[in-house]
């Protein structure tokens, strides 16, 4: 029951009362709280220098600025349009011909060509990383030799910084980490000279933070990501800000500072309704891992469910949603909720099989077998083992023979009524390693009956 609303005098008096915002009526009454907040916003502004300078600023737009901006936009579009055929010509044929072609003809050396090359490298990076790398080399070669005086403002410097950052990314994608760091450092040196340097510097710093992580320098990685996040926040770039927070949290997690990593992401999880689905799902997915490693299965499960429910991303990637469900199922099983685990894991076996992911299908089955054993459901375990053997026989994989040895061991244990969860886990872990270590021989676990 809300008592009578405060009048204006009472609200103004509360502004000067220490702890006024905690007043019981204000906490309960939305209308009064809104009025109080409005007053407080006004008085908080009254405390700023800027509001007391009452000289009138000329509010009319300046025609010459408009003219300059329009001219710049038009010039940029014209350069980009002219660059399209030039880039197509430059990137014709095998990539070892591209650089000599560029060096032999100055017509390619425009800001528009640099921009279009960066777009081309962005497209090539997922399908042909070495092509993307060579394209980024062309872009930096041109950007480094453009005359800054031929373009207005910071155009050339900004382009140069972007081209080097892009090259750093391509080098990273090609696993040339030391070269990537050098390229990113080049980008950083250029970016700090710009009139508007903070945003570009933050973009470079976040890339550097990820590189530091590759070098296992997690402290600098976390610090760089934190600095970038603060800049992205100031520029109102929420998705990038969250991306930086995730990078920071992952660096902290890799340093073993799990509770700090969790603290880093929780505020963003709390505001997930304001984020796009992909960003929200990335937060949830990271929290699953952090809570799992912190030994808090309930929270891990909670965020796994949220991640699972958040529809996002690349519609062509059918495997990863299955993997998320797999994690959720396993988390249920490990927290003793075997029915829930079963409900999720059983259909996954067929789903992985349909995608031709035999190894995953078998592993899911064996995870489930472990949970069944805990309940003494040996006939169900036997069914899953038979199914696993059938998968490998049908798949005819190079690893089939060794995998069959491991699965035969399980079968023998079953027949002798000596199968344990530890044996199932041992076989499953062996099968996980087998695709990358095909020469690995199966050894029964210590204290095995066979």
């Amino acid at each position: 029951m809300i008592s009578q609303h405060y009048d204006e005098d009472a609200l103004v008096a509360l502004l000067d009362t220490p702890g006024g915002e905690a007043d019981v009526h204000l906490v309960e009454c939305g209308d009064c709280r809104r009025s109080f907040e409005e007053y407080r916003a006004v008085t908080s502004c009254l405390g700023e220098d800027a509001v007391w300078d009452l000289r009138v600023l000329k509010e009319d737009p300046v025609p010459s600025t408009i003219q300059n901006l329009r001219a710049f936009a038009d010039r940029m579009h014209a350069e980009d349009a002219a660059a399209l055929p030039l880039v197509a010509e430059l990137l014709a044929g095998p990539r070892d011909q591209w650089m000599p072609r560029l060096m032999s003809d100055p017509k390619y050396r425009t800001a528009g060509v640099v921009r279009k090359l960066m777009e081309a490298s962005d497209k090539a990076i997922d399908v042909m990383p070495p092509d993307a790398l060579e394209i980024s080399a062309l872009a930096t070669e041109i950007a480094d030799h453009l005359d800054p005086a031929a373009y207005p403002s910071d155009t050339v410097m900004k382009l140069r910084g972007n081209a080097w950052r892009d090259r750093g990314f391509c080098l990273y994608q090609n696993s040339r980490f030391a070269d990537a760091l050098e390229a990113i450092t080049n980008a950083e040196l250029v970016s700090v000279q710009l009139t508007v340097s903070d945003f570009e510097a933050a973009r470079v710093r976040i890339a550097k933070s990820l590189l530091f992580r590759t070098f296992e320098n997690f402290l600098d990685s976390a610090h760089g990501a934190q600095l970038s996040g603060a800049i992205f926040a100031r520029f109102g770039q929420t998705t990038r800000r969250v991306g930086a927070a995730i990078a920071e949290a992952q660096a902290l997690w890799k340093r073993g500072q799990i509770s700090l990593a969790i603290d880093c992401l929780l505020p963003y999880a709390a505001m997930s309704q304001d984020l796009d689905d992909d960003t929200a799902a990335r937060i949830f997915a990271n929290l699953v891992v952090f809570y799992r490693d912190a030994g808090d299965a309930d929270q891990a499960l909670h965020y796994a469910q949220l991640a699972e429910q958040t529809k996002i991303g690349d519609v062509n990637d059918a495997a990863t949603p299955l993997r998320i469900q797999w994690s959720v199922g396993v988390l249920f099983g490990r927290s003793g909720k075997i029915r829930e685990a079963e409900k999720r894991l059983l259909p996954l076996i067929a789903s992985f099989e349909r995608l031709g992911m035999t190894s995953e299908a078998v592993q899911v089955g064996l995870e489930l077998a472990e949970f069944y054993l805990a309940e003494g459901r040996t006939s169900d375990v036997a069914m899953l083992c038979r199914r696993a053997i059938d998968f490998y026989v049908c798949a005819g994989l190079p690893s089939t023979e060794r995998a069959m040895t491991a699965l035969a061991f399980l079968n023998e244990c079953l027949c002798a009524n000596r199968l344990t969860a530890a044996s199932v886990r041992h076989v499953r872990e062996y099968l996980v390693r087998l695709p990358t270590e095909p020469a690995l021989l199966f050894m029964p676990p210590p204290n095995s009956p066979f």
Partner: protein
Amino acid sequence: MLDQETLEVSTPTAAPAQSTAEGASRPPRRTAAKSKSVEPHLLTADEVELLYIEHRTLLLFVACRKFRVNEPDAENLIQEVFLSFLQTCTKIENVRAWLVAAMCNASRHHWRSMGRTEPLPDDYDNQSDPGSQGLADRFAMEMTVQKVLGYMQPRCRETLRLHYFEGRSAGDVAKELETTNRYAEKLIHNCLRRAREIYNNITVVQR
């Protein structure tokens, strides 16, 4: 897919939502108005002109009043900020926030290039809390309050300045205005109410 910005693997498509066995409450999606994203390098000359007209006054306020840059230099900086914006070959989520932060950046750069360091505004770093009000919103509000003060009677303005800017008590205000404590208190209340009224009128028009 790797995100070029963060070099992070983005989370891929999840399966269709299923019933939650353990009652994990799914946060409602996108309840907040989503700020308009743009790709600056794709903007036409007309769109650029509109953006300039829309944001110029706030940017001018930031440079001139928050960083004390003179008006002609501020106009040049606005142009620099827009040129930088146009060359940002990436999606910008919140244009106004980007421009305001860039204006702060350009203003500091301006003072550095003149061999001076200008202290940052007190409210420049109020960004650590993820849910905090943005810098652009804050500066826009200050600009509006400045306009509010322009509409007020000098005595009212002076009362508010003494109490809320200089932090003086009602008793001090009474002495300064040569009146009684009780009347000074009344004056503070009435002037603030008036300020809020004008503020609401201005912002209603803006909305």
